[in-house]
């Protein structure tokens, strides 16, 4: 047994919980993309199933996040690091929430998404998935290798730019198409904005990760 693991039992325990939390986040990003694909294929039942699974993981992620916060509050981490981590976890929590809300809107509204948008939207979802994955890697690096945080954060930014570009083009397509009613145009805009919001939040959290990594490397 690694003697350090005995000496730093509390730290290792927090690290292990954070790892689990990040795996949940990655699973959610995967399910999010898969759920949309099912929807595009017209399988609403499969979409509902994916949405349910995502909700279940989000519950576990919430519970785990709460456990980590309690550990940080009660165990003896240094106040400086503890406050930073609590602040970070609160921000990180917004990403899974945004995934859940995005699917929630589809579930209630059951919008009709025109076929000509599917390809670009699928591409947008691939980049969204990659952005969340890069965020998970950046966060993982914050807890394992501060030096490599920057490269993952840059990857999040890159994916966010891709999503932004696709979102802009999709919005143009939606509002330039005179066959769509105004209500439909605004409904589609809402859905696209919700997907775009996921990567915006991911970029925001990634920036926080970079700030913390820089601060604690000083």
């Amino acid at each position, binding site marked *: 047994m690694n003697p350090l693991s005995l*000496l*730093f039992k*509390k*730290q290792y325990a*927090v*690290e292990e919980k*954070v790892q689990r939390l990040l795996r949940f986040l990655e699973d959610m990003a995967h399910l999010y993309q898969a759920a949309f694909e099912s929807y595009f294929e017209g399988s609403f039942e499969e979409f509902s199933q994916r949405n349910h699974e995502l909700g279940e993981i989000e519950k576990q992620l919430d519970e785990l996040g709460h456990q980590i916060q309690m550990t940080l509050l009660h165990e*003896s*981490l*240094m*106040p*400086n*690091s503890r406050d*930073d*981590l609590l602040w970070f976890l609160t921000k990180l929590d917004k990403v899974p929430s945004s995934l859940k809300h995005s699917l929630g809107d589809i579930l209630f509204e059951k919008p009709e998404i025109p076929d000509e948008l599917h390809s670009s939207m699928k591409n947008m979802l691939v980049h969204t998935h990659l952005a969340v994955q890069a965020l998970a890697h950046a966060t993982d*690096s*914050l*807890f*394992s*290798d*501060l*030096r*490599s945080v920057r490269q993952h954060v840059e990857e999040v930014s890159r994916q966010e730019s891709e999503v932004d570009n696709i979102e802009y083009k999709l919005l143009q397509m939606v509002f330039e198409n005179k066959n769509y009613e105004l209500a439909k145009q605004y409904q589609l805009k809402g859905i696209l904005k919700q997907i775009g919001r996921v990567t915006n939040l991911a970029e925001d959290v990634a920036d926080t990760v970079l700030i*913390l*990594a820089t601060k*604690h*490397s*000083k």
Partner: protein
Amino acid sequence: MNDPAIIIFLIGGLFLGWSLGANDAANVFGTAVGSRMVRFTTAAIICGIFVILGAVISGTGTSLTLGKLGAVDALGGSFMAALAAGLTVYWMTKFGLPVSTSQAIIGSIIGWNLFSDSYTDISSLLKILSTWLVCPLLSALIAAILFTLAKSIVRKVSIGLIRLDGYTRLALILAGAFGAYSLGANNIANVMGVFVPVAPFKDIQIGSIFSISSIQQLFLLGGLAIAVGVFTYSKRVMMTVGSELITLTPLAAWVAVMAHSIVLFLFASERLEQFLANLSLPTIPLVPVSSSQAVVGAVIGIGVVQGGRELQWHRIYSIVKGWVITPIISLLVCIVGLYFLQNVFQQTVKRESQYQISSGVIEQFRKAGINTDELDALSGSVFFSSAEVVRAVEEIVPLSSQQGLKVIEYSLRNSLGINAEKLSLIDENFLSQQQLEVLKKLEGEKYNFSWQLGNALSQKSKEWNLQGGGLKNKLKDREIKSKLAYLYRLFKE
């Protein structure tokens, strides 16, 4: 320790120890505790234990330097010197002025020297004064180097935030333990150094392995007083220091404590001194230095590395002010206190000593390298203070500071009688078999000066020979000197 008055007299030193613990523990754990990186209880326990260990194991070196500056030879004098230093520290802290126990006790000792007309060894004084300047500068340099190294290591090593937090906390605790050890080793001389010449305890020997000398017992008591100061009063000071230096990152805090501890250790370690001497490298004088100034120096060093924007000039000014004000106040308080203790409370603040110059003494002077060509004129003269005998010799022949100390050592009268009763009191484990046998051969002899017994023993056995040769044999010679000092006390008539 038969006289209960001794306890009262020791209170002066214990008070000084308490105030040192209350104030200076903050230099070791202030940043960590004040910014809640380490719990106060954890810090206090570690600090208490390591201060005592440092004092008992490594406290001798700095005490001997203080002893050279002025050997306070009566308990009343030691009490007042320690009390004056303690009061100075207390008052200056109360008025928010920069404070250093090291500087206070130096002022007190010089005050006692002036009051008792005792010789002040100028070379020791200059050595001490120079370290006051060197200590913060060295601390700043070490901190700058350490900070640069530590920063580059943290950047290169693959480590995460939580583990970095754990490592930093452990590093702070270890640095604190080292700091507390160094504080005990370096600053115990401030607390108990003035009591060393009049140490009221007997050496304790348990079997042939474990022994604790009277000086170590004294230091243990002083260490306990410092530990009590840490537990009872240092929390408030730690919180203040912690919030004052809150801009320090955990890494910078660790560097500050390490640099402070290294400096205190460098100025206290006899082993290091011996090691450097063996390599023919210049040695570092063993002198009590100011813990507060070491830590401020370290913070300044870190500030310089970070671009110098955070340089705290008012703190540098405080250091310089402390060099001047603290010893002067302590000196004055000590002189006034000694006057009252001697004339109002009728206490002995200085032992009545006679310094006699005889042909044998002059011969000893010659062996010590003093030009004795015209000293015969002083033969038969008796003096009643160390300063007086040095002045008399200096009127005839110029003396170096070291020679001044030799004049005092050889001319001090000390009637010794070697008798069976006292020989039976000697702890056989303290002396080697050969040393004891040689000593027993001197039964019935009487001497007027301590060095006469030393010479007699040295002539009969190499085991009593001082090696000389400077620092290289310092530790071996110190052991023989401590045995001789024990014999001089034992056979005194």
